């Protein structure tokens, strides 16, 4: 019985291959996109985590100082502690390969004698590593050991030269040996260089400094940590290496969730297709159902019959989607690693790890989606009264009579969406926002039947006047075939809504960023190491350059910039030291509230500071007044009573939003000089994507971090018209010597917007897929709708309708259907864009985006939809009005 039932179902699938295929393709695309996103995200993250774990090795504790090097002397002290069984010092940095090679590489400077208990890549087990290699590493300052994967990728042999960029400088290294490791090494696709710690410090310009000390404790962990902490100076932390993995997970969670939700949209649209396909099949087979029921089939079996049909599409579509998804994942991974590297952490995963769990999850999702979509019409079929003929007109009437009710449910969905938009769950991903987005889509989808009916009925008299019978009948067919067309219209509306919403959101965001660059980033030339990635924080400006810049006759003002990235709570933040009084003279930052001048002044006024002011350009005589005054205002250090706050800072909006901090509040910042309570003088709009940030005056920063490095400078010219000349001169003077880059404000804006566009490329691609799926929907709808109506069309011809009248009628109907999906989609998209901009983005990332409507997307989608729906209907209609009317009319 079962097998026989299946055969009936499959024969139907095979009988309408076009429709079935499109339904399956829709599901396949949805599944593929979803899977590729999950696979790529998982691969990127896993590759990073494996790397972190591998580098951490057996270490139980890691001693580090937030955003600053540790004093080398600390190592000896730590190793001697009774609670320490083993300790290993390390410096590490992500460098760019130079010369013919490209890509990031992790340079790990280690002490070979301390390493043994720690790392997975035991040196004695290393393959191809001879004793001479070790001797060389220990004796030659440029000797490095290259990881197996990197060596094979670059074709490196022992004795080869290998160039790397250390900040702006190019350094030549020599391959002393090649090592392999039993587990994967680092996220950078195994691109690791090992070096003796001494030469590494030298190379990285960190003589006397360590990035961290790994420790294996002796005794109970809590006790070890307490003892370690007690023995360390303030500002030095003892952490678990695993914490970093968790932090990166949190870092990527929002990014990943956003993409996953977006990719689920394609699947959602695919569900509409399946729903429609099964509904059509139920309607078409009404006689058969009646007959089978008369012959003794139970309602359960009827239900099973149609569920099986949906299931078959789901299984096949899902399977296709898996294949497609794995293929797509590579491309997605490439885009994603770029995004992640420029946003969060250095990643260079190239291999997509095909995880069975994720495949199963995606497939399960596809099957569940199709089953759910097939269930509604299947239940309808099973419930049908036992009678020989199930009139489509009755189904039609039923839907028509329920249109109001369905609309009511739509309103309920919107109200719930409103509630979801206001609901706030502290921290974590903005789930209520996503639920609200789904409800908005659903709400507008549920408006479709009533809207289609009202549109058809409302326009009927008008179009009848203008277009005659074609207009009249077109409207009637629109209002009268809801059971077949409403779902397609709704599906297309949803896809368009998402497209419009995402476009408006991204457009607004882009415009906001653009405004922000002009308004909040001052400076004529931005000058610093040519690195645009998360590796930029340990790339410094050579000190002698600053001295030369100060003497430059074109330069009026110099803004100094220093940035470190530190772990803070469950995330990473940037701490930025800048010359606030220089910044204040040139417009300051863009604060969300408060007086800019006053805030800038408060932050710029640093007790006992003046370092920031002191490095100002000599040539800017007329500005000296401002500097000296701000210095004079500073009270003598030490004469004050101990104040609760160690200084004033401003923080970026994303930091304020995600950690619920406010103007006037206090932030306790971990620094190498111990935790510092700092007063938040202001919250400024900030759209850099590399993380939330705390800004302070550079003198304060130098006091806490005790370092005088600079990451970059901004130059303010006496004559801004001379930017190109100065830019060219800087490039000429330093371009050869160092890899430094001088960007004009325009270049900077272009660069920022380029990164912005890259970041959202994936989002657009996802939306495109949803639209493609919906377009499938509209094409099938009309193909099927018109093909089912050939008899009506032939009859119309038989009683004297001209071809023009018939084509006109079909085009009116499809045009109205397309127009309606656009209308609903535009309304839905506009509402959704507000949700995305003001709720989801705000909750997920903390950015305030100014709403900028992009009218182009509206008329573009309108044209697309109208063209498509007209063409999709015209083609079958044209075929249907070819001769042989008699044959069509005769068959019953």
């Amino acid at each position, binding site marked *: 019985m079962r097998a026989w039932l299946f055969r009936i179902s499959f024969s139907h699938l095979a009988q309408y291959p076009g429709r079935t295929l499109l339904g399956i393709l829709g599901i396949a695309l949805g599944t593929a996109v979803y899977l590729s996103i999950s696979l790529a995200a998982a691969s990127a993250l896993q590759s990073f985590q494996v790397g972190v774990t591998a580098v951490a090795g057996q270490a139980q504790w890691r001693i580090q100082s937030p955003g600053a090097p540790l004093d080398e002397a600390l190592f000896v002290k730590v190793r001697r502690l009774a609670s320490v069984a083993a300790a290993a010092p390390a410096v590490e940095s992500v460098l760019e390969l130079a010369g013919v090679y490209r890509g990031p590489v992790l340079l790990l400077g280690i002490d070979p004698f301390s390493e043994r208990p720690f790392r997975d890549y035991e040196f004695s087990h290393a393959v191809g590593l001879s004793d001479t290699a070790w001797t060389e590493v220990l004796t030659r300052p440029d000797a490095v050991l290259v990881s197996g994967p990197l060596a094979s990728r670059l074709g490196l042999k022992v004795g080869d030269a290998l160039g790397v960029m250390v900040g702006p400088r190019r350094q030549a290294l020599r391959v002393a040996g090649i090592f392999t490791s039993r587990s994967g090494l680092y996220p950078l696709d195994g691109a690791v260089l090992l070096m003796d710690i001494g030469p590494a410090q030298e190379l990285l310009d960190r003589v006397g400094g360590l990035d961290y000390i790994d420790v294996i404790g002796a005794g109970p962990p809590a006790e070890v940590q307490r003892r370690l902490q007690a023995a360390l100076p303030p500002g030095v932390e003892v952490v678990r290496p695993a914490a970093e993995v968790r932090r990166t997970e949190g870092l990527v969670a929002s990014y990943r969730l956003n993409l996953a939700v977006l990719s689920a949209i394609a699947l959602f649209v695919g569900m509409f297709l399946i729903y429609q396909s099964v509904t059509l099949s139920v309607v078409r087979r009404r006689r058969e159902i009646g007959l089978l029921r008369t012959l003794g089939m139970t309602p359960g079996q009827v239900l099973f019959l149609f569920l099986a049909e949906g299931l078959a599409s789901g299984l096949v579509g899902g399977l296709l989607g898996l294949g497609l998804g794995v293929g797509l994942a590579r491309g997605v991974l490439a885009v994603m690693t770029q995004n992640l590297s420029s946003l969060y952490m250095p990643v260079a995963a190239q291999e997509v790890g095909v995880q069975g769990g994720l495949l199963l999850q995606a497939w399960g999702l596809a099957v569940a989606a199709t089953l759910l979509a097939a269930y509604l019409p299947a239940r309808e079929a099973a419930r049908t009264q036992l009678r020989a003929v199930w009139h489509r*007109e009755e189904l039609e009437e039923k839907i028509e009579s329920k249109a109001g009710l369905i609309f009511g449910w739509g309103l309920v969905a919107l109200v719930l969406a409103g509630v979801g938009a206001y609901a706030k769950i502290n921290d974590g991903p903005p789930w209520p926002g996503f639920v609200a987005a789904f409800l908005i889509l659903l709400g507008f989808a549920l408006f479709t039947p009533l809207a289609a009916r009202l549109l058809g009925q409302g326009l009927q008299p008008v179009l009848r006047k203008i277009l005659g019978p074609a207009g009249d009948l077109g409207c009637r067919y629109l209002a009268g*075939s809801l059971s077949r067309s409403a779902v397609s219209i709704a599906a297309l509306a949803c896809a368009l809504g998402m497209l419009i919403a995402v476009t408006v959101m991204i457009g607004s965001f882009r415009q906001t960023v653009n405004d922000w660059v002009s308004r909040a980033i001052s400076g004529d030339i931005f000058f610093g190491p040519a690195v645009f990635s998360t590796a930029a924080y340990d790339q410094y400006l050579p000190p002698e350059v600053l001295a030369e810049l100060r003497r430059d006759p074109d330069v009026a003002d110099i803004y100094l910039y220093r940035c470190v990235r530190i772990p803070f709570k469950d995330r990473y933040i940037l701490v930025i030291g800048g010359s606030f009084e220089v910044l204040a003279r040139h417009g300051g930052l863009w604060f969300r509230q408060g007086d800019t001048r006053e805030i800038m002044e408060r932050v710029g006024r640093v007790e006992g500071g003046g370092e920031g002011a002191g490095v100002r350009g000599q040539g800017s005589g007329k500005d000296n007044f401002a500097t000296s005054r701000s210095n004079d205002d500073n009270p003598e250090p030490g004469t004050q009573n101990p104040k609760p706050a160690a200084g004033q800072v401003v923080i970026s909006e994303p930091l304020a939003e995600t950690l619920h901090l406010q103007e006037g509040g206090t932030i306790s910042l971990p620094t190498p000089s111990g935790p510092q309570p700092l007063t938040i003088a202001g919250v400024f709009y900030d759209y850099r994507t590399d993380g939330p940030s705390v800004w302070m005056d550079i003198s304060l920063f130098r006091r806490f971090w005790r370092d005088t490095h600079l990451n970059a400078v901004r130059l303010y010219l006496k004559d801004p018209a001379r930017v190109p000349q100065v830019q060219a001169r800087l490039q000429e003077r330093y371009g050869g010597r160092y890899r430094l880059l001088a960007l004009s404000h325009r270049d900077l804006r272009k660069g920022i917007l380029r990164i912005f566009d890259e970041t959202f490329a994936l989002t657009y691609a996802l939306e495109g897929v949803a639209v493609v799926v919906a377009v499938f929907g509209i094409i099938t709808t009309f193909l099927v709708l018109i093909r089912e109506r050939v008899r009506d069309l032939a009859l119309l011809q038989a009683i004297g309708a001209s071809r023009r009248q018939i084509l006109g009628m079909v085009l009116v109907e499809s045009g109205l259907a397309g127009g309606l999906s656009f209308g609903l989609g535009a309304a839905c998209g506009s509402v959704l864009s507000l949700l995305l901009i003001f709720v989801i983005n705000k909750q997920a990332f903390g950015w305030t985006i100014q709403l900028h409507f992009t009218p182009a997307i509206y008329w573009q989608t309108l044209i697309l939809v109208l063209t498509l729906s007209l063409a999709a209907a015209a083609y079958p209609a044209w075929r249907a009005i070819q001769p042989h009317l008699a044959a069509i009319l005769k068959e019953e």
Partner: protein
Amino acid sequence: MIKLVEVSKVYHRGPEAIQALDHLSLQIDSGEFVAVTGKSGCGKSTLLHIIGGLESVSRGRVFLDGCDLAHLREPERTRFRRDRVGVVFQSFNLLPLLTLEENVALPRVLQGASYDQARQEAANWLEEVGLSGRQGHKPHQVSGGEMQRAAIARALINQPAVILADEPTGNLDSVTAAQILTLFSHLHRQWGKTIILVSHAPEAGQAADRVLRLADGRLLA
């Protein structure tokens, strides 16, 4: 006057050629009521469809009031179907979306009449076929006989000279069938329509002026 000269119709079904009409010639005068009979597959429907302009001939010529159907191009053919003939089908063929009245009014609207005008006339014709009071119903809400009456009214609304009916009683019980046949006789007598009616019912033969017997696409003497 309807005149067929040496008309052949060949259908191709794959490699097979089916001779539905075989060098058939006949003449039907204006105002004549002709019944066509013959066993299934002998070409009755084909004949009707050719006269109604729903099907083209393979060979031969068809004239209706002197106009050569073979020479009509598509727009003229459309006008011919709309204005000159009215067709009634065995399976009614009403548009399910429209009410009975709208179904009846449709050919008039397609002709270019105003909607009010067309509905007014449709109501009159519905009354003529004995369907007053049901004009607001949709086809699936009425009986087969009522649907067929509406279909007849639709065939009449553009006042064609010729009514073609292909087994209009085939789907109806004998009582209803008799009523429909009476209706055709009435139309014939009252309005002087030329009626060509395909039917197996002996009553049809009695009502008609003349009976044409078809076999294998030829006319039996």
